[in-house]
């Protein structure tokens, strides 16, 4: 887990990749500036098209949790299974 303030600091230093795990329609409605959308339902396709070449050591922060579903947790797990080591989840909604 990473706090919003710590994540903000890392974004400003351009160290961290921010991933929005919500469905695309929600991402289009609202998202953190600079965040990249990787919707859970389309994870495999989007991953192959966009993230397959990404450095496995890079810091990644995932967000996107609702009362009904932890999109962030599921996407983070999928990234960990693909060998990414620095995957964290943003605290709060």
């Amino acid at each position, binding site marked *: 887990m990473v706090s919003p303030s710590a994540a903000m600091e890392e974004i400003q230093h351009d160290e961290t990749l921010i991933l929005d795990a919500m*469905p695309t*329609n*929600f991402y*289009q*409605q609202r998202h953190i500036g600079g965040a990249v959308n990787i919707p859970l*339902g389309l994870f495999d396709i989007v991953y192959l098209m966009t993230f397959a070449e990404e450095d496995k050591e890079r810091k990644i922060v995932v967000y996107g949790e*609702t*009362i*009904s*579903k*932890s999109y962030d947790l599921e996407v983070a797990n999928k990234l960990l299974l693909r060998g990414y080591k620095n995957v964290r989840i943003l605290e709060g909604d």
Partner: protein
Amino acid sequence: MSKYTAFVLRIYVGCFFLYASMSKIPYPAQFAEATANYRLVPYWFLNLGAVILPWVEFVCGLFLIIGFMSRASAILIGFMIILFNVMVLINMYWGAPITCGCYDTVGEPIGWKKITENLIMLIFIVQIYYFDRLFIFRRGGLEDPARSRVTPPAASR
């Protein structure tokens, strides 16, 4: 409102919910996804509800068509419609870009049209509850209670 109109409405609402349920029963995962988009159903009920609710719709629709426990079915359907309308209204207030997930996995966007359709359906349900007296399924087959009413025998002195 005549009992004949209530009967026609009962068949219509029954067929409507039977159709709605049959598009969800084979695809509980997609229905769970559509429900999750509303962001109101707690995660621990999401999958269970996605399996149970379409079957409740199916049974209520079937019962309305055959006239078995039609008032109880009408109450259940009415409750589901009210609940759904509240969920739609909250998401409209939030400006959520979601589809209703009513009949198929894509569905139409939520909005006042959907709210109006549901309110009309709710009026049908009220009519069924208060005026449905025709072809009610009881032990021994279908009957019209108005016709089969037996006058109690006069008390002998």
